[in-house]
């Protein structure tokens, strides 16, 4: 808090723009759409937006944990698909109760996260390569299990798609709880701080005695488990499992994480509000363009621009933090200046 204040008073208007530029842009976008689309700024639409982003928020939050540790998990979309498929097959083929099959989906997600972790931590394989391979393999496995047919959901689960508490869809609450709990884990527990430390510098983390392999392992398990949960949520929203479930979701999740200010180099960013803002931005743009009846392809172009702007704004902010680097160097040069003139204290 103190830091934010000093940034404000120190740098004036430019500082404000750079510090909060992203939120300002989001506000401008919302302002624009509320002017041109009459129903945009309404309770109903706000809830619709939150409802729409709930699954991706859950998945992106899990991915963010891995990214904090300086790694990446692009298998999340396939994990979502495969865990949902396994859950439903167990229900239909083995008669597992429908409610338990939802829990099984999360378990399968955790398990698949563990598979990723074993490959990355145990075999020391680059996380992008490992999860790329798993992205393809998991999807293939799921397609085999479904025989590329869609699976209709049983009634007990399908009704969850319309379940509300008051006027609010329950998946919004689920996403909210995930965000808040995960945010606490990252910011307020040793595990979270160790994940951030590893993302800062893995070697240094190992040198101060942090359990780098174990912690990285847990990060991938969290990512997998939340991909499983997110997959279940997406499935419930759609009402069935189609072979498209989770397809391309990994890249939406990466976009959400990046737009939310999480550095892909690791060690930086936040679940709350970072991931939430990232997801909101994407959906607000999509929803708004939809309402003004824009060309659907325009959405992709604008998404590309938004990602670029987000990363650029982020790099500006980092650049602004640089002056301390100069201070470092100045402090360092001091000994050279005075070393020569300094008499030897101990002369014999």
């Amino acid at each position: 808090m103190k830091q934010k204040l000093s940034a404000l008073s120190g740098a004036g208007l430019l500082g404000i723009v750079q510090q909060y530029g992203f939120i300002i842009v989001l506000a401008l976008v919302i302002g624009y759409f509320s002017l041109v689309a009459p129903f945009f700024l309404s309770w109903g639409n706000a809830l619709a937006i939150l409802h729409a982003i709930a699954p991706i928020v859950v998945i992106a939050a899990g991915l963010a944990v891995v990214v904090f540790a300086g790694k990446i998990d692009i298998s999340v979309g396939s994990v979502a698909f495969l865990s949902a498929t396994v859950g439903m097959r167990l229900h239909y083929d083995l008669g597992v109760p429908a409610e338990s099959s939802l829990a099984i989906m999360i378990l399968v997600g955790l398990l698949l996260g563990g598979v990723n972790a074993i490959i990355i931590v145990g075999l020391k394989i680059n996380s992008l390569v490992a999860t790329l391979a798993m992205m393809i393999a998991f999807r293939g496995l799921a397609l085999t299990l479904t025989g590329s047919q869609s699976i209709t959901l049983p009634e007990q689960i399908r009704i969850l798609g319309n379940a509300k508490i008051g006027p609010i869809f329950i998946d919004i609450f689920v996403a909210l709880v995930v965000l808040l709990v995960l945010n606490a884990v990252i910011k307020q527990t040793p595990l979270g701080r160790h994940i951030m430390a590893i993302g800062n510098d893995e070697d240094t983390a190992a040198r101060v005695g942090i359990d780098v392999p174990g912690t990285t392992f847990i990060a991938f398990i969290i990512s997998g488990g939340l991909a499983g949960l997110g997959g279940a949520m997406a499935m419930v929203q759609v009402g069935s499992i189609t072979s498209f479930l989770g397809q391309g979701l990994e890249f939406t999740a990466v976009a959400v994480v990046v737009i939310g200010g999480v550095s892909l180099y690791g060690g930086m960013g936040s679940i709350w509000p970072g991931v939430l803002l990232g997801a909101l931005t994407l959906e607000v743009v999509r929803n708004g363009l939809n309402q003004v009846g824009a060309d659907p392809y325009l959405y992709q172009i604008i998404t590309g621009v938004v990602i670029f702007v987000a990363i650029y704004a982020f790099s500006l902010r980092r650049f602004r933090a640089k002056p301390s680097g100069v201070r470092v160097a100045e402090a360092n040069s001091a000994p050279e200046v005075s070393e020569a003139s300094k008499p030897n204290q101990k002369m014999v």
Partner: protein
Amino acid sequence: MNNLVVRMSGISKVFPGTIALDGVDLSLTKGEVLGLIGANGAGKSTLVNVLAGILKPDSGTIEIHGEQIEVRSPREAQLKGIAFVQQEIATFATLTVAENIFIQDFPTHRTLLKRGEMRTKSREMLDRLGCYFGVDDDVETLSTGDRQMVTIARALMSNPSVLILDEPTSSLSVNEKNRLMTVVKQLRDQGVTFIFISHYLSEVFSICDRIVVMRNGVVAGSGTIAEVTMQQAVEWMIGAANSQQPTRRSNMELGDVALDVRNLNRLGVLDDVSFQARRGEVVGVWGLMGSGRTELARALVGLDPVDSGTVAILEGSELLPKRSSRRRNLFGYVPEDRRQEGLFLPLSVKQNIGIVGLKGLSRFGLVLRKKENSLAEQFIKRLGIRVSNMDQQVRTLSGGNQQKVVLARWVAVGPPVYVLDEPMRGLDIGAKAQIRELISELASAGMTIVVIDSELSELKLVADRYIVMRRGRVVAELGHDADEHNLMSVAAGAENLT
């Protein structure tokens, strides 16, 4: 003696190719500051790494407070009261100061961090250390010196009975250094024992109660600060005079000034470095670790930016200043780490030799295989590189032959100036002699050569003249007659004794 805190006896450690420690004994008494000194590679760091549980000794015993123990991990060492502040500053930029201090042992309540306790305790510790930055500041906003203080605060949090400081002052400003010295004295008076590793004798003699000098993995000498003179310490660091004869060249006539370096500055790295070198001259750059030798080499060849200063090279009869991007082609540069920076390990010997002069080997952008082959053949023969064939992967060659490949690459294009950073590191005696001969040969042919070597006796065999560096400055230029004592004294900052 009840005051004995640590007793290490007969500690040996062998690394492939070198004996890092050979039966070292070291004991520490309560509340003393022990200065551990020695030239590069003398075994200081290995010894403290053993004590701190980072390396396992091959033989020898460690007793702490009279109880014989095995220190199997850094964590275990910490529990036994041994804290280690490593030379490389281990902080996390995007975590707060308090988080950095507690990273090894977070206080928690039902798995949640006790932020309040972290803040209060960090504040107390930083106040004791005379630091005024906030405990909630991100470490990335701190100077290098303050970051060093954060690591010291972290080490002190475990209330150690022994605190090892490995080159703690190398990144500190004078003020920060003085502050650290005050803190060390304070803690010593409270009964903390220190091992203080430094390359700077003046520092060691001002803060330590006793010194131990290491050389080649053994204790070369020790004594209290009252007994030992700086001169004596320098003698111990050097050891018996080396009897090898320098490879002198027949043709010792020096030509014109071919390299003119003026006022090279880089904040925190190089401080107003100026020197000249002539055609046919081998200039040895000498200094202890962290003196800025490699940084100078990288700046010379244009790999690192400089804030100001010029590097001019003789062209025709004129010294012409060259931009850094040009210098990369005009200097034959052999980097310190040949495997990482000098070679393309998966490529063949032939490809490695031809890589710098590829333009001359190609037509219409395509490499002419015949030319590449004949070039490789010629230089494999000329430098006596031992390969089964020129398509052999460079990875599979011995160190000496790898180094020859790096050199061959440059000799093939014939730059006027060579900058060689540790060209003989890790080579066997025969290979070293061959590299030395090659250096002499190049100098006799009128090339200008700048050599860095941390083995003083080795440098003495090739250099015609020396520039001595300390903390980024050229502190002395010494002639060919300089002996090892002179060179070591100047480099360690004990030059006003003779």
